[in-house]
């Protein structure tokens, strides 16, 4: 293939030429010999580079995004070099994943060696040897591929200004995945600093999948030099959407279950689909589902297809093996969670199966993009709803994919714990002046609205803890000099900082080791003898806590027997037990996006569209319309009915599990106050159900309380505060903020405190701080996080305002069809409420009764 552009190629290698002739030699020839035509967006980016304009490149997966990102730099570096002023590092590539950085480095070698370019590239991750990392600071390559944490580490050294003096380009891959997170906040701060070190303006190139609001990412890429007046934005190149994906929703012969997430009913069809394709990825939403689907597929794997498993709890070595097997074509299918979401090119995937609803339109687009890594061919995907509600959600996701619609990401305010970490890091690099640092920090888009008072409080926090009671001045970590510059008080502080850098704080996990059968026999019942064994991966502590030796569960694709726990390791042995438990994992569950929720509500309200639904689902909805009512687009439906001597209240907000859990807690408090004697609640992505002793229908009829005020938005005030004070989710959020901000030291392999000890001490610290210094900046930071994170207060607030005066109540004589899937969660979902004290009291009363008999 020879495009028009190649015919007018230039004969000498040089920096990119004028518009219309942008691809110099040897690049033009290289493209031609590969049979490729440079894509319009690749050329446009080279042009943007010659004007040194920071640019966001939006392209669907498979559009040659990564190559496009590097082309301008390769062209520049193949031309005449400018004189070195620093260590000589020219290009920094930053990816959210270590594996992605390594993968991209590998893909870069091909063009560089084939064109005979004299360009040195290296990766730098947590896995890079210490010697190599040391050397990289002194003699860096031309192009360094790395992660945000490594950038923060490099910037904390005194030689950073020398290292980055020659920097001219920063490439940020998968920016959509990075920007709206604490990691993104830290990286934004680091970019602001890099901009200060480089002798010439740095061009930033952001590579992103399609997003609903590109302006957020465009602002992220450029320094906000006038935060008071204007939000500056980078250029943007949109490569357009690729071919429309070819997505179908699976309709199985077996009836759709009422609830659950295993999709067991559809395994035969999923297996048949695997057989028809070369390489399929089976995406699921949680690690628990991954284990389960993997088990189910192998159970019926009569043809012995090579099916692999990939999720975040598996040991890294095992994951690497599966990745390599995918790339080499040795596998036919991989069951995976979001660890495979990001843009790693794992090989020739020709089908993506999505088990369970995808929860968000953008995630769905990203995942189906994994099939057919070529822009001009449609991706093939099969959606498998695992219960009736999910049929609606899958339809909504499909509609959104066909329209190319994306979830809007709320604009983000930079986290204060991250800022605290950054302030310390900058002081570790050398003396900093607060005024200069404040100006620099505000150039980072997430912090452009930061006010000076908050900044000063953060600096004060870093220096002395920032407490109202000023008793730590003599221990200050940062000390101001006569020149107004802040210096770290001791070199040890820099060492501590470097061990604690980063924003990823894991909840306590337990390493799982597999004992050989003989060792397992020997150690039976004797935890003292547990030792050795191959590492299978890591599992959440709280799951292990519920096990007794002898219990069996599924892990890493095997059925194992729990032998015992020793320090932070759980020992298991192989077993052939037939009814193992499936671990449920705390992480990895995404709540339903606002955008998909709206589509689901619209679908429910519009009866004319029901014909398109599977017959079983349409019948279910008709039955609901007959017996009760359907949720509307803009209101909230509340049903009350008696069942089994209890009285239920079911609401259908469609705002996602996290917001529903918070709502459930708050409603419980209010119902308690009005004497309805609530006993518990459960929540899923679609709605929530509370059950009480008192007859709710009767109470509402008697006007004992009013549903409108039950759901009034003021519950986000005092009720929320009172509940939060003791909420374990709030404590967890506080712990994360405390670690990131450096109040509590991070765990380190070898010399770590156990996760439990950390959990204990931050809980104590939280209680004391809340009682004596409720306005402390770290409590404020944790509260902000909780509002958008685990508690989703932000979303709940929007919901409550939206439905003000629009609560529609139906009193029913019995359970409604629509409520069944939610009620079925009872017993399956752990009831998230503060019943711990009651549990203790029950235990004590039981003991007392037992003894008094």
């Amino acid at each position: 293939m020879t495009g028009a552009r190649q015919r007018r190629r230039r004969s000498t290698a040089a920096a990119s030429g004028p518009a219309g002739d942008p691809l110099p030699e040897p690049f033009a020839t290289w493209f031609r010999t590969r049979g490729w035509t440079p894509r319009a967006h690749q050329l446009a980016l080279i042009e943007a580079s010659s004007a040194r304009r920071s640019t966001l490149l939006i392209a669907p997966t498979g559009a040659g995004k990564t190559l496009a990102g590097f082309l301008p730099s390769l062209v520049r570096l193949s031309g005449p070099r400018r004189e070195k002023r620093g260590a000589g590092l020219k290009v920094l590539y930053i990816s959210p994943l270590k594996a992605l950085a390594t993968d991209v480095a590998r893909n870069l070698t091909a063009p560089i060696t084939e064109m005979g370019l004299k360009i040195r590239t290296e990766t730098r991750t947590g896995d890079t040897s210490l010697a190599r990392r040391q050397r990289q600071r002194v003699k860096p390559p031309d192009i360094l591929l790395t992660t945000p944490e490594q950038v923060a580490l490099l910037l904390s050294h005194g030689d950073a200004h020398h290292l980055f003096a020659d920097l001219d380009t920063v490439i940020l891959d998968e920016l959509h995945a990075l920007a709206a997170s604490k990691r993104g906040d830290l990286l934004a701060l680091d970019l602001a600093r890099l901009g200060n070190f480089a002798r010439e303006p740095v061009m930033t190139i952001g590579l992103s999948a399609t997003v609903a609001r590109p302006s957020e990412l465009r602002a992220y890429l450029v320094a906000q030099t006038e935060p008071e007046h204007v939000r500056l934005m980078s250029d943007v190149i949109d490569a357009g959407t690729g071919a429309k994906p070819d997505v179908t929703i699976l309709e199985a012969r077996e009836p759709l279950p009422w609830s659950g997430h295993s999709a067991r009913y559809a395994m035969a069809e999923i297996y048949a689909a695997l057989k028809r394709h070369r390489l399929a990825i089976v995406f699921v939403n949680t690690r628990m589902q991954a284990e389960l689907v993997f088990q189910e597929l192998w159970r019926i794997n009569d043809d012995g297809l090579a099916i692999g498993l990939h999720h975040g709890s598996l040991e890294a070595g095992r994951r690497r093996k599966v990745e390599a097997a995918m790339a080499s074509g040795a596998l036919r299918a991989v069951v995976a969670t979001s660890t495979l979401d990001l843009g790693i090119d794992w090989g020739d995937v020709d089908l993506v199966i999505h088990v369970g609803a995808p929860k968000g339109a953008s995630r769905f687009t990203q995942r189906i993009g994994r099939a057919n890594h070529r822009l001009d061919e449609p991706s093939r995907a099969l959606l498998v709803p695992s219960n009736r509600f999910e049929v609606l959600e899958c339809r909504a996701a499909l509609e959104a994919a066909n329209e190319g619609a994306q979830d809007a990401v709320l604009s983000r305010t930079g986290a204060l714990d991250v800022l605290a970490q950054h302030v310390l890091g900058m002081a570790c690099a050398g003396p900093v002046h607060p005024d200069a640092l404040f100006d620099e920090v505000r150039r980072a888009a997430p912090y452009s609205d930061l006010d000076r008072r908050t900044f000063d409080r953060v600096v004060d926090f870093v220096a002395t803890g920032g407490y109202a009671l000023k008793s730590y001045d003599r221990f200050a970590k940062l000390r101001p000099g006569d020149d107004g510059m802040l210096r770290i008080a001791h070199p040890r502080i820099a060492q501590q900082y470097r061990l604690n850098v980063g924003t990823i704080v894991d909840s306590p996990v337990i390493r799982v080791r597999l004992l050989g059968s003989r060792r397992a026999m020997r150690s039976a019942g004797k935890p003292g003898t547990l030792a050795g064994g191959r590492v299978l991966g890591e599992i959440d502590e709280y799951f292990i806590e519920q096990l007794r030796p002898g219990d069996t569960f599924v892990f890493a694709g095997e059925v194992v027997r729990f032998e015992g726990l020793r320090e932070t390791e759980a020992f298991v042995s192989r077993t052939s037990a037939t009814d193992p438990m499936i671990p449920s994992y705390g992480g990895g569950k995404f709540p339903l996006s606002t955008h998909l929720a709206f589509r689901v509500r619209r679908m429910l309200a519009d009866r004319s569209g029901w014909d398109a639904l599977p017959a079983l689902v349409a019948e279910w909805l008709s039955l609901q319309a007959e017996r009760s009512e359907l949720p509307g687009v803009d209101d909230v439906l509340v049903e009350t009915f008696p069942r089994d001597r209890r009285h239920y209240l079911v609401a259908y907000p469609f705002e996602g599990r996290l917001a529903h859990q918070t709502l459930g807690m708050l409603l419980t408090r209010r119902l308690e106050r009005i004497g309805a004697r609530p006993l518990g609640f459960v929540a899923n992505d679609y709605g929530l159900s509370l059950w009480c002793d008192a007859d709710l229908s009767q109470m509402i009829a008697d006007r004992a309380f009013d549903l409108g005020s039950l759901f009034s938005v003021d519950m986000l005030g005092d009720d929320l505060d009172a509940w939060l004070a003791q909420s374990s989710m709030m404590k967890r959020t506080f712990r994360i903020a405390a670690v990131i901000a450096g109040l509590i030291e991070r765990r380190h392999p070898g010399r770590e405190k156990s996760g439990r000890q950390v959990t204990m001490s931050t809980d104590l610290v939280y209680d004391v701080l809340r009682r004596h210094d409720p306005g402390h900046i770290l409590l404020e930071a944790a509260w902000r996080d909780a509002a958008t994170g685990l508690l989703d207060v932000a979303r709940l607030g929007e919901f409550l305002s939206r439905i003000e005066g629009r609560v529609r109540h139906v009193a029913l004589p019995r359970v409604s069809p629509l409520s069944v899937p939610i009620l079925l969660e009872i017993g399956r979902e752990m009831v998230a409420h503060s019943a711990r004290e009651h549990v203790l009291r029950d235990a004590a009363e039981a003991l007392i009764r037992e003894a008094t008999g």
Partner: protein
Amino acid sequence: MLQLKPDRLGIDDFVDQPVVVCGKAFRADMSGALYWPAERALIVADLHLEKGSAFAGRGQMLPPYDTRDTLDRLARVIDRYRAETVIALGDSFHDAEGPSRMHADDLQRLRLMQDHCEWIWITGNHDPAATGHLGGHVRDEITVEGLRLCHEPGPARTTHEIAGHLHPAAKVVLNGLTLRRPCFVGNSLRLILPAFGSYTGGLNVMDEAFGSMFASERMAVWLLGQEGLYPVATRLLRPD
């Protein structure tokens, strides 16, 4: 050793629990303190005052309120029982320099309590001589009514002893909920108090340190809750 209450159990019934050691009657309080009605004495263990500032000295700026938090809680429990004597079973300060780092307000708090109560500091491993100039008597251990009150508990089969030092905590799993809280642990002949300090962690009573102490005898555990003190059956206890 469990003395039992009438079968009507109300909220207030869990504020404290009756405990008997070698025939002497005590009330174990939900705060972690032990009251001895016959002696009008309140016994607390492991206050670890100034732990926050000890950490701050090493670069971890924990909130500096632990001392006043601990002292405030102590004042409340003294008031509740109208105790006339306070016996602190050692490790009252996190380190030997602790008293010199105390905030003037906190010193004032302590003095006020000492004005109203006879005060006995038992020395511990963290604070061998720290409490010398703080008022009150300083002793390695004392014996009252045949009971030895000391910091470190003695070996297996020791009797007639009330001690601290180990920071006992218990973990129970009930209805899928896991709880780990400080606790009193003992048998009818000896008792170990939970750490009273606001920043003190805990050692699981299933740890070997306790196993050797209560050997094969039955051990009784009272868990500190938010609203009460709860006796818990040993079969519900779990190791970490």
